[in-house]
C-alpha cells in the first residue's frame, strides 16, 4: 500500500516539476488571469458606482479569482486521455505496475497544482491591490483555498471522465467545450449565481457545477461552517457518481485493450 502510494506521489512530483519548468506557459496563464481581474474589477467598480453600492468589486473579484484558479488550472486532461486512447498509447501502459488512469490523474493533479499555487499567490496579491480589504477574515482564507484546490481536483476528474468518452466518440472537443460552458453558467464561474433569476438557480442546483464551483467559491464572501459542510457533502455525492462512470468506462477500455491490443 505504502509502495503503491509512493509511485503515485512520485508521478505527482515529476509532473509538478515539469509544469514548473514551463515558464512561458505559466506567464501566459498569469497574464490572462491578471487581465480578467483587471477587466472585471473595472466592470464591478462601474456597476458599484452606478448603483451606489460600496465595495461591490471587492466581493466579486475575490470570487472571480478563486473561480478562475479552479477553471484555468485544469490541464486539458480530457485531451491527454483522449489521445492516449485513440492513438493506442494506453496499450503500452496496461502491463506496467501502475494503474494507467491513476498515473494520468496524478500527473494531471501535479500539473494543475503548479498553476493553482501560482495563480493563488500572485492573483491574491493583485486582487488585494485592486480591491484593498477582502470580504473574508484572513483565518478563513487557507480553508477556502484548500476547498478550492479540492474542487480543482474534482474538476480534473470530470475532465478525465470526458476523456474516457473516447471509447464511444470520435471527437470530444465539443463535449469538453459544452461541459466548460455549462460550468461557467451553472457554476457561476464569472458572475455568481446570486445575480441570476431564481428559476435558473433551481436548475443549477441539480448539476454538479453548483457545489464544485459556486458553493465552494461562495465561501469567500459568505463563509459559514454550514455552507462549508453543504459544499463538502454535495461534492462527495458528485464525486461518487463520476467515479462510478469512470470505473465502468475504464473497465471497458481495459477489456478492449486486452482483447484487441492498442
Amino acid at each position, binding site marked *: 500500500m505504502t509502495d503503491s502510494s509512493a509511485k503515485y506521489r512520485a508521478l505527482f512530483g515529476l509532473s509538478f516539476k515539469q509544469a514548473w519548468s514551463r515558464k512561458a506557459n505559466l506567464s*501566459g496563464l498569469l497574464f490572462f488571469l491578471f*487581465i480578467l481581474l483587471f477587466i472585471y474589477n*473595472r*466592470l464591478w467598480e*462601474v456597476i458599484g458606482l452606478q448603483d451606489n453600492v460600496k465595495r461591490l468589486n471587492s466581493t466579486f473579484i475575490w470570487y472571480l479569482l478563486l473561480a478562475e484558479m479552479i477553471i484555468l488550472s485544469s490541464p486539458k486532461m480530457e485531451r491527454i486521455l483522449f489521445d492516449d486512447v485513440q492513438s493506442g498509447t494506453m496499450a503500452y501502459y496496461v502491463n506496467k505496475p501502475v494503474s494507467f488512469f491513476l498515473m494520468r490523474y496524478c500527473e494531471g493533479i501535479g500539473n494543475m497544482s503548479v498553476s493553482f499555487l501560482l495563480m493563488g499567490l500572485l492573483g491574491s496579491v493583485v486582487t488585494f491591490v485592486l480591491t484593498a480589504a477582502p470580504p473574508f477574515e484572513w483565518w478563513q482564507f487557507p480553508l477556502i483555498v484548500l476547498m478550492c484546490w479540492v474542487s480543482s481536483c474534482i474538476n480534473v476528474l470530470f475532465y478525465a471522465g470526458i476523456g474516457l468518452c473516447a471509447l464511444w466518440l470520435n471527437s470530444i472537443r465539443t463535449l469538453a467545450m459544452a461541459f466548460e460552458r455549462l460550468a461557467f*453558467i451553472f457554476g457561476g464561474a464569472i458572475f455568481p449565481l446570486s445575480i441570476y433569476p431564481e428559476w435558473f438557480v433551481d436548475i443549477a442546483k441539480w448539476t454538479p457545477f453548483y457545489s464544485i464551483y459556486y458553493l465552494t467559491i461562495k465561501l469567500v464572501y459568505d463563509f459559514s461552517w454550514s455552507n462549508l459542510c453543504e459544499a463538502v457533502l454535495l461534492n462527495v455525492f458528485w464525486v461518487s457518481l463520476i467515479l462510478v462512470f469512470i470505473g465502468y468506462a475504464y473497465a471497458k477500455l481495459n477489456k478492449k485493450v486486452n482483447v484487441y491490443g492498442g
Partner: protein
Amino acid sequence: MADKFSNMLKLFLFVQKSNLKTAFLSKGDALVNVVMMTVNNLSFIFMWWVIFENKGTINGWNFGDMALLFGVMNNAFATFALFARGVQQLPEFIDNGSLDNFLVSPRNSLFMISISESTFANWGDYVTGFLMFFVSGHVTWTNFGLFLLAGLLAFVIMYALRVILSSLAFFAADTQRLGDNVFMAFLTFGSQPASIFTGWYKIVFLTIIPAGFLSLYPVELIKEHSTAAFLIMLAGSVVFFLLAVKIYALGLRHYGSGNRFGVR
C-alpha cells in the same frame, strides 16, 4: 500580381471546398458540432443578458449594444477559425520543424499556414453573429452592410494579433500556450461593454491590448454611422496587418530548419 492573387484565391476556394467535403463525411456529427457551438455562444450571451436585465444599462451601454458587439466578435472569430486558424498552430510547426514543409512550397508560407486548419464547428459562430445582429434592435440594410464590414475589419485585427503572438515562437521556445492565453485575454477584453473603459483603462484598451478595435469602434460604426470609427478601424487593421507580416518575416530570418523531410 493579378495572376498570383487569382491563383491564391483558387487554392483558397479549393481548400475550403475540401474542408466542407471532409466535414460532411459525417453530416450528423458536423451539424451537432455547429449546434453545440451556437448553444455554447448563446449561453455566454445569456450571462450578459442577466446582467443587463438586472442593471438596465452599464455606463450608457444597453443589451442592444452588447448584441452588436457579440455579433461583430462572433463573425470575426468565425472567419478566423474557418479560414485562417492554421496560424494558431505556427508555434507548434516551428517547435517541431514542420514549418519546413510550408517553406518549400512555392506559395506564400504565411498564407499556406493560415489555411492549413479549419474548425467546422465555428460555423456556429456565424449563426450566433447574425442572430445577435437581428436581436440588437439596429436592423436596417445600411446597418447590415456596416455590420459585415466591421466584422471583416475586426477579423483582420484579430488575425494580425494572432500572427504576432504565434511569431514569438521564432524567438523563444514553448510559446504555444503563452500565445493562446494572450489571444484569449484579447478576446475577453474585446467582449466587455466598451463603456466601462474610461481614462487610462481606455489607453490600455486601445494600445497594449488593442481590443477596443473589436468592441468600441464596431459598435460606434454601426450605431452612429461614424466615419471616424470606420477610419480608425481601417487604419488599425492596416497597421496591425503590416506589423504582423513584418514580425513574421523577421522571425523567418531567425528560423533554423528542423531538418524534417516532407513536402506540403
